[in-house]
């Protein structure tokens, strides 16, 4: 632990820490451009020069290139260092255009800040400025090369940190250019971070271009809703719409970055179709009228058929407050226990996936990035949880062996072993890979006798995991029962949706699956259904098909889903940007999001592009949405019931893993509950037999397959038009007679419920046999787990 003195203040830092980082611990920000916490030093900009007055290093040195050592005395404001930095910033500004007034970075620009703090205000160099031609880098990043100061942050992030190779430095000396070989969209699904990383206006957020100055935005810490990882973001709002999403540092989860899905999937809060007023039997009515009618109808239903004829259904994209309020309401009113998951099995599996995360075994996303061998089971990182791919990349850069067992073709920007196995073989893969490395070859042959192509990969996996000091396992919930009981092996689950963990934590044990509710509705046992922020047509097509049998369908939502369209009564709710709330990430970590804006029509639409009407007595349009938890509480009052003042706190107190946690004051990094382990061993899931057909595997795309993202215009614009693309192993296709001349891109029909959905069939050899990979789109939501022999046919 070197001890050093910076600007007269002593600091003690771990060995290997650079002086610039040591200074940061004291709150001293040494000017820098090329150095970045996540990327390290490049020594390219010379901006962080400081004076070492005593100790092992003497004189003017770069603080980003000098490791802290005992006895160092550093002066950041030494006159020589200040003069040096003033010259550097003047040099960097020689070619930088004076276009701050029209530059999007203006106001949060590191170059602006450091030009001013460096004391450079008058241009002395009379020559011409160097200019470049810009490139079109796709829909997310705007290129403005003239502003570049050649710090290399973008290239280091893009190529080294992320492992993509289509963007980088070109030319030399004074002409260095950062770009692509030719115009075109950046291939890197983390490219949005370039806008955060770039210390100038060279690479900026294109969709947010000319929307707002940063200082004019409302800003609040938020949590991403677009996969289960719970990455931290900063939401910036302007004129009642989210102007931009930025990565927010959380050392335990996402580090300094987020993926493009999380960054560019906002916008659903501002679409014109969003439910903004209460609706009663298809007519917009004041909220109070809808609430009164709702209470009356629910009371009448309970009177006529008993309270057990009413069910409440919670969504997997709601905050835990909302989920808890739904549970509390169901309990207080004596309704059926609230349903969250498609089946009881799925609920139990998700609960088990969290329960196994005992303190010695639980790993955070950041710790996955530091593991030295990772087995990923049933997860395609780039699409199921994009930031996981970046964490695996960091592990791989440090030498970790990565093994991914997943039926889908898997693409990752790192060297890895892919074991294309169908889900029914996951337990076997797990057993072999985590078993003894010496017995692995024999075990592989015994447990997977018909897949000799997997044997070498399994043996490597077993050896890598056995030899590793910090091995980790990334798994889907279904596997919780099969996990080996070995504290050495870290665990990190990836769940289905942003609030899956929240629902699993809170859901009562007797909560039915949506399939049971569908049966009850069909049989007439359930007459009234209260749906809170869920789309039945995507989450439970079986239930959606019998909605006509209900006497009363109530939907509380902020998205214009088909379920909202089918409802008798609609109460509009607020998004996470308007009400904030607590979300549980896939490792159970509880994190709080703050509200950033008030609900209401965006000003742009209110004024139809111009200034909104100047009538001050006019109510703001579209402000009816209220937090779902608040609406549920009002509903309870309407029914003459009293819910706890804080349903979440009340509920949490009764849940062992959450009891005693102060949910009102969660720490910055979030709080991971200490789970106690599995109470009772789970029954092993029934193996799916593939004899009769193809196992259906749903897969996500980078954009617009998560529920809020489907309603985000920008994310939706990234999807390809045309029929959904199915993937089938080439040999399976041959067996089905679908592998002829048209094999790649064959027009097929998929039997989904009682409909035939047109689709395009693509073939692959990098995937498991006996499965069909289907995109997660609402159109195809109702497929059976095993597609029968006639389920897929030529169109």
């Amino acid at each position: 632990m070197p001890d050093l003195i910076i600007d007269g203040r002593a600091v003690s830092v771990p060995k290997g820490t650079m002086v610039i980082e040591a200074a940061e611990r004291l709150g001293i920000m040494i000017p820098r451009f090329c150095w970045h916490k996540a990327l390290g030093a490049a020594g390219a900009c010379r901006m962080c020069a400081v004076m070492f007055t005593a100790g092992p290093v003497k004189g003017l040195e770069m603080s980003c290139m000098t490791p802290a050592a005992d006895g160092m005395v550093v002066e950041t404001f030494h006159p020589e260092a200040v003069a040096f930095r003033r010259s550097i910033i003047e040099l960097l500004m020689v070619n930088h255009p004076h276009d701050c007034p029209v530059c999007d970075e203006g106001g949060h620009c590191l170059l602006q800040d450091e030009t001013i703090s460096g004391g450079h205000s008058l241009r002395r160099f009379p020559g011409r400025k160097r200019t470049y031609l810009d490139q079109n880098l796709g829909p997310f990043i705007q290129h403005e090369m003239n502003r570049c100061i050649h710090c290399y942050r973008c290239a280091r992030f893009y190529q080294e940190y992320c492992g993509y190779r289509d963007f980088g430095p070109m030319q030399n000396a004074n002409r260095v250019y950062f770009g692509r070989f030719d115009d075109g969209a950046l291939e890197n699904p983390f490219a949005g971070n370039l806008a955060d990383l770039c210390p100038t206006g060279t690479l900026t957020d294109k969709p947010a271009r000319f929307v707002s100055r940063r200082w004019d935005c409302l800003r609040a810490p938020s949590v991403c809703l677009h996969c289960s990882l719970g990455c931290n973001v900063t939401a910036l709002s302007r004129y009642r719409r989210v102007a931009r999403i930025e990565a927010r540092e959380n050392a335990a989860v996402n580090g300094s970055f987020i993926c493009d899905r999380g960054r560019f999937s906002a916008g659903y809060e501002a679409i014109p179709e969003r439910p903004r007023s209460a609706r009663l039997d298809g007519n917009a009515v004041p909220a109070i009228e809808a609430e009164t009618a709702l209470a009356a109808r629910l009371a009448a239903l309970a009177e006529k058929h008993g309270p057990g004829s009413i069910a409440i259904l919670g969504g997997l994209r709601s905050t835990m407050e909302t989920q808890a309020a739904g549970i509390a309401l169901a309990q207080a009113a004596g309704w059926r226990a609230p349903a969250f998951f498609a089946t009881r099995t799925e609920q139990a599996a998700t609960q088990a996936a969290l329960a196994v995360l005992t303190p010695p075994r639980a790993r955070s996303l950041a710790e996955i990035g530091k593991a030295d061998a990772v087995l990923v089971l049933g997860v395609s990182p780039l699409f199921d949880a994009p930031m996981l791919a970046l964490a695996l990349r960091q592990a791989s850069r440090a030498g970790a062996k990565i093994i991914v067992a997943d039926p889908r073709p898997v693409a990752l920007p790192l060297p890895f072993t892919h074991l294309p196995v169908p889900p029914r073989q996951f337990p076997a893969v797990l057993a072999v890979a985590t078993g003894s490395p010496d017995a692995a070859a024999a075990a592989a042959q015994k447990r997977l006798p018909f897949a000799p192509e997997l044997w070498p990969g399994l043996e490597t996996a077993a050896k890598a995991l056995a030899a590793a000091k910090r091995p980790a396992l990334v798994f889907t919930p279904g596997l919780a029962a099969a996990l080996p009981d070995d504290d050495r092996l870290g665990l990190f689950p990836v769940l289905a949706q942003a609030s899956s963990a929240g629902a699993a934590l809170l859901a009562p044990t007797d909560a039915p699956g949506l399939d049971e509710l569908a049966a009850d509705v069909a049989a007439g046992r359930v007459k009234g259904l209260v749906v809170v922020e869920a789309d039945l047509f995507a989450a439970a097509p079986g239930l959606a098909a019998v909605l006509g049998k209900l006497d009363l369908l109530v939907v509380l939502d902020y998205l214009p889903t088909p379920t909202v369209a089918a409802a008798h009564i609609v109460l509009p709710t607020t998004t996470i940007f308007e009400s904030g709330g607590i979300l549980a990430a896939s490792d159970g970590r509880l994190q709080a999001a703050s509200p950033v804006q008030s609900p209401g029509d965006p000003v742009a639409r209110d004024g139809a592009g111009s200034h909104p009407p100047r009538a001050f007595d006019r109510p703001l349009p579209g402000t009816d949405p209220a937090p779902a938890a608040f609406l549920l509480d009002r509903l309870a009052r309407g029914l003459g019931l009293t819910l706890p003042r804080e349903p979440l706190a009340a509920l949490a107190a009764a849940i062992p893993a959450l009891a005693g946690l102060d949910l009102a004051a969660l720490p910055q990094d979030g709080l991971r509950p200490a789970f106690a382990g599995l109470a009772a061993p789970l029954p092993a899931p029934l193996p799916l037999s593939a004899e009769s057909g193809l196992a259906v595997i749903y897969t996500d795309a980078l954009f617009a397959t998560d529920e809020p993202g489907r309603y985000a215009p920008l994310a939706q614009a990234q999807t390809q038009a045309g029929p959904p693309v199915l993937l089938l192993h080439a040999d399976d296709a041959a067996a089905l007679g679908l592998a002829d001349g048209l094999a790649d891109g064959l027009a097929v029909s998929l039997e989904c419920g009682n409909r035939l959905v047109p689709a395009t069939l693509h073939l692959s050899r990098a995937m498991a046999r006996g499965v069909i990979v289907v995109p997660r789109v609402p159109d195809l939501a109702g497929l059976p787990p095993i597609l029968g022999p006639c389920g897929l046919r030529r169109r």
Partner: protein
Amino acid sequence: MSPLPTELETELARLVAAVPRPREAAVDVMYALQRHYGYLCDEAMHCAARVLGMTTLELESLATFYDYLYRRPVGRYVIHVCDSVVCWMFHQDSIFDYLCRTLGVPPGGTSEDGLFTVLPAACIGNCHNAPTMLINGRFYDRLTPERIDAVLAELRAGTEEPVRCK
């Protein structure tokens, strides 16, 4: 994209096979393609990317960094005139200026007959013979205007057909 001659394909495969990792042969492959095409046209870059398993961007990073890989059409003879300290100390008038004036080209330009391209180079490591220039891999030492005239005349008299890229 027209296919490469078989000999060239064989040569490229040999270059790639001779090193542990293909990217180590990147510059050699690009030289070979430059010799074939006359300069590194986009077609050549795509060929190199295919042979090496690298992206065109990675190759562009190299090709635009190094002085002797040309991403734009050049003349039959590329004159790298030393534009560094020692040659400046020894020159009588500006050798570089003289070349440009004689050939009627700006720095980096190619003469109208397509024979000569004049490029400044930051030291070509021949200081003991300053002022100096390098033409297609050959040094020309202790230059004077007269000597330059003689060299240009000699090269013009050559009858080889200049290679051009389609």
